[in-house]
């Protein structure tokens, strides 16, 4: 990753305009052709420097729900339970964290009542209690990682 790649990562976190040629302005700012910009973005995706590029959808605005859930999973069953949780397409991400509550995942569903059903299934399959922590207020969401 060179300094041009770093500039691309910084610029593309900001959001592109919705217009026929949305990459033109960013390419011009960086002094690149659109083709060169796009091939670098593809390489950043292939190298997992970027996890995705595209519209960032908001489940709640679509009428759905997002919830953060935590579990206390015994060490000897950790991989098994991670597999059970990750098997749900509604589980958008899942992190191992250094705490008594050692598994933290986000459930994104199209209808709010689906989340409760998935939580109940996970509790039954894993034998672990799921602590449901839906957000009550959002103060900021955005990514500002400078490279």
């Amino acid at each position, binding site marked *: 990753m060179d300094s041009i790649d770093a500039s691309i*990562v910084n610029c593309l976190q*900001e*959001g592109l305009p*919705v*217009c*026929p*040629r949305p990459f033109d302005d960013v390419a011009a700012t960086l002094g690149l052709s*659109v*083709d060169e910009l*796009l091939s670098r*973005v*593809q390489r*950043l995706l292939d190298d*997992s*420097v*970027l*996890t*995705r*590029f*595209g*519209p*960032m*959808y*908001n*489940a709640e*605005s*679509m*009428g*759905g729900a997002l919830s953060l859930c*935590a579990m206390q999973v015994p060490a000897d069953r950790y991989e098994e339970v991670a597999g059970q*949780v*990750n098997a749900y*397409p509604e*589980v*958008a*991400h*899942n*992190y*191992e*964290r*250094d705490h*008594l*509550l050692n598994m*933290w*995942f986000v459930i*994104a569903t*199209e*209808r709010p009542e689906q989340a409760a059903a998935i939580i109940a299934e996970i509790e039954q399959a894993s034998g672990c209690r799921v*602590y449901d*922590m839906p*957000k*009550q*207020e959002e*103060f*900021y*969401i955005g*990514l*500002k*990682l400078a*490279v």
Partner: protein
Amino acid sequence: MTANSQELSAVQQAGQALDATDRQIIVATQAGLPLVAEPFAELAQQLGLQTNEVLQRVAAMQARGIIRRIAAVPNHYALGYTANGMSVWNVTDDHTSELGRQVGALDFVSHCYQRPRHLPLWPYNLFAMVHGRSQQDVEEKISSIATLLGGHCRGHEVLYSKRILKKTGLRIKG
């Protein structure tokens, strides 16, 4: 583009203004936007729509907040942000909204939410994600949050991520 063909059932009753064409657009782009100079024209061709219609619908979804923005999602680890701390704070209820806004405004905080406590195990009601290049970097940032919260905070912890078990982002069924 990851296949959603197996998930092609429906986004039923998904908000008042999401019609079948909006859903087609969401399903076609939730894994990513085509990396071509004219991605919306490419998308229109894939879906059998006019480019203008795709542009209008994407713009309308962004105006309604269904699309937050069209952007890249970086991998924190690959960028050298190897210390990712979820800081959690037990803030007096009366002050949570005001202090939450102040914490969320800090430039090193990427997400900030109020969430329910689960007493006695979990007394924390304010969550702030802090990203840093080292654990020490994160600790310094945590200290400045502690200073900001002052006497309205009764305790806090920082939960570091040890491993990403899954990260796919939102997926809806088409």
